[in-house]
């Protein structure tokens, strides 16, 4: 299990992670989402033992990761900006990985190279962005690490390769009880793959939850009445988004689900449904509540407040 307690990381005056705490169980795929600069990559680098935390603790089964080769032997990290030796091919990189990871498995490496249909003798410099990512995944999966961290690994992969990578990671998690942590801006990918999800914003953890039951204060309500109605008729509710089509209204509401349902039932609706929120909707509205929205980008903070 990975235990993160009050984790803080500063870069000069900038705080990349601020007092983050969470626990990641063994054998899960953990997704991390967040705005740009939220601290996702920094979190993975801290977990990989690349950065030293300025505060807090990261423990893998009770052991600190920083400068601890025993722990790091079981960690493999695929960053967004992947490193390859100058002019090297996959075989040369495999040699490098094999020299530092005791569990590097050449048979698995060869199998993966064939599966991804990459030429292991060809210079990686000639690979496309997607192929370079595939190569990095091959090398990472060949290490038989117990903890695998992927930073925006799906970006640049075509849908087929994306599915293959997802399958390989899931197989590893199921078969070998591996823990995988991945960040991505493609919320659909995470929604399909992850068991758990954390939302980071400005270095802080907004929420952490099972993907199947997102513990968020937001929910989506579909409601219809026999008489005409407007948003003003729901004055007691904290509505983040309201959209009416014909006599049916869809609302994103923040608050206690049970109290809201009971209040709406008292209004004798013809239709009252609580619909599941997609990960994208959760991300959008949770972030909007934190003041990070489309309006912010185009209109600036003041307009957003209005």
């Amino acid at each position: 299990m990975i235990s993160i307690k009050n984790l803080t990381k500063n870069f000069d005056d900038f705080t990349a992670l601020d007092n983050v705490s969470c626990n990641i169980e063994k054998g899960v795929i953990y997704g991390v989402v967040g705005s740009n600069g939220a601290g996702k990559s920094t979190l993975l680098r801290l977990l990989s033992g690349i950065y030293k935390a300025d505060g807090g603790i990261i423990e893998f089964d009770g052991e600190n990761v920083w400068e601890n080769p025993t722990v790091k032997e079981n960690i493999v990290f695929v960053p967004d900006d992947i490193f390859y030796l100058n002019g090297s091919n996959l075989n040369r990189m495999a040699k490098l990985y094999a020299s530092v990871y005791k569990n590097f498995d050449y048979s698995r490496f060869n199998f993966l190279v064939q599966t991804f249909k990459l030429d292991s003798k060809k210079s990686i410099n000639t690979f496309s962005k997607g192929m370079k990512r595939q190569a990095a995944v091959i090398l990472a999966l060949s290490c038989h690490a117990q903890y695998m961290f992927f930073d925006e690994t799906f970006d640049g992969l075509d849908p087929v390769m994306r599915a293959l990578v997802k399958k390989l990671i899931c197989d590893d998690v199921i078969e070998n009880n591996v823990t995988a942590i991945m960040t991505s801006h493609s919320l659909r990918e995470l929604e399909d793959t992850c068991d758990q999800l954390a939302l980071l914003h400005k270095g802080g953890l907004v929420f952490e939850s099972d993907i199947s039951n997102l513990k968020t204060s937001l929910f989506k309500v579909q409601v219809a009445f026999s008489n005409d109605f407007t948003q003003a008729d729901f004055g007691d509710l904290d509505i983040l988004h309201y959209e009416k089509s014909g006599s049916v209204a869809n609302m994103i509401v923040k608050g206690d689900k049970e109290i809201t349902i009971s209040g709406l039932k008292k209004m004798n609706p013809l239709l009252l449904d609580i619909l599941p929120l997609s990960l994208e909707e959760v991300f959008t509205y949770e972030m909007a509540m934190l003041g990070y929205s489309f309006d912010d980008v185009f209109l600036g903070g003041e307009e957003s407040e209005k």
Partner: protein
Amino acid sequence: MKNKKIFDLSLCMEGVRQLRVFGLVTLILYIVVAFLKPYNSNALSYYHNNWIYDPITYVPYIYMLFMVVAPCFTLYLFSFLLKRSSSDFFHSLPHKKICLFNSFFTSIVIWIFSIEFVTVVSNMLFSKIFDHGLVFKAGDIIMPCIGIFIASITVCAGVLIAVSITGNLLSNIVVSGLILIAPKLFVEFSLSKVEDLTNYVFDKGSFMPVLTGRYNLVTSSVSDYGIENMDNVIYQLYTFILFVIMYAIALFLFNKRKSEVAGNAASNHILQSVYRIFFTMVLCLIPMGMLVDGGDETYIISWYVVIVIFYFIYEIVTTKSVRKLYKIVPGIVVVVFLNIILVNGIRMTVDNILEYKPEVKNISAVYLEEYGLNGWKKDYFDSYSMKVADYDFRVEDEDGIKTVSKALDETIKHKDRYWAENSYSFRVCFEEKSGEKYYRNIEIKSSDVKDIIKNAIVDNKEYLADLPDADSVKHLDYTWDYGLVIDNKLSNDDLIDIYKAYRVDYAKMTDYEKVAFRYGFEDEPSSSVCNINLLLQTEENDEYINISVDEKMENSYKALLDIIREKEVVNLKEDVESFKDLVIQNEDVYVWTAKGNYIKVDKDLTNYGFSSAEDEKMFFEYMDELSEYAITDAEKYMRASYGQQSINFKLSGFLKVGDKEYEYIRLYFDKNDKTSELAEKIESLMDAAH
């Protein structure tokens, strides 16, 4: 359980693999170089007979191993620290940073050792094949190799400190230079300036060599002390200790280094300021030197303006940013402050040295070491004389010490810019009872010098050692300009006779005369007419001694004259019909005048270069007329050669006169109105011709 490995063989071999291309290219280059020198010796049939092989001499550019190869390998292998992606990768590896550092450093060491070993062995092999004369001795091969190796790993350690505290290539290189060379530059600058401004009273060579890094093989190789100290055990030990210290610092800093520094010029703003200021201070050595020497203000200001520009350029290039340049302006104040401190520090040190005067009661001895600027230098003395007395007059009597001390007062009073008439300028060493030695350049009146020397030699006869017996002379040689003109040169027997007579003259001299004659303190010095070099055969080794015969050496001078009288001087009047005949007999004749004018004439009587046929005719007439006055008497000829009352012309071009050949002929003429007029006319013709 925590993994505490500080070295990993797999990682080390990975480092070796990463350096493979550079390593092999370097190795091949060195093998080619190792082949070329012996091969060329063979091609030129130039064999170093009985020469002892040493790799510094026989492997050209072997010093490049530590000057270029070692830093390049280090910068390349540790270049992963410069990019975010590579830095993160290597920091994510399941090894401690210390382990990574040690393993990669070992990779560099393996390559350096391999290149050096293979190069030297192949060079020895090629030398054995092509250069038959060489002798191989293990000590002479291994010791310089150890020196080169230690210098190489020391350079690596210096570069490793730099890469641990910087994050891009330019700052890597600049800081490496600052660490390895800048301290030596500052020390050398300060000590040299103090030495110069104190007129060498302060001897930088004797100033705390441990602190000044004199024994540092890396810096000494590019400074005064040369690369020849590579086999010196003291230098090797000193440099190795330096390596250990630098390696420990590099290891500590590398362990503290953060991966996020990659790509940045420095790990923080303060360090960046330190590098920038340090870099600028190195540039400031030039105008600071001018300031200390009192140079032209315009040049000094221009230099400082250029340096300020470089100060900003350094920041822009290393940080790749022009924003916030205003923030580095206060650093200029620090640079100015450091300049003021250094320049004034040197001046104050110079003043302190020049104003120091040891108390007479504290002086145990004074040594008159050598003439200050235009007198004798120890190097001029022959090995025999040096062995006898080392040519330092040790003055221990109170009067002598007081006299020299009084002369020191004048020197201090005039801040060393003091030239007195009828005096000698000496470099003097005051030895204090504490053992401290203090040097000054002092003017001492000639009469005082006489008294000092007389007293100094009363109890000390080592300056008066007898000349060796003629039987112990193994070989004699002599130098005199007119030797070639006389048909029979001085034979070995002639020289032995002269030397025997010289010993008699020398034995007759008083103690003071002996010393004064040897050191040139004579009241009326005379020019020597013949310098004889003797090679003495001794049991231990050969010693050289020079003797100079002049008119005051009664017996030896007479012996020389007796010999000379029996010789003949070339006589153009009798041996050739006219000067034109002499020219016709020879291929080319060069006629040189005393003023340095010359003209070339050939046997076809062409190519004179005279401005007209009339001038050509006049030239031969004047030469014939002048030849009438040529001195042909050997004794007169010899006197004319060192006297002032003569005119001389030189004819060169391997001349044949009758059945004798001369490399050149120097003609001496008594100086009178006629000869002066003729010489002037010939000079005029030559001037017109040119």
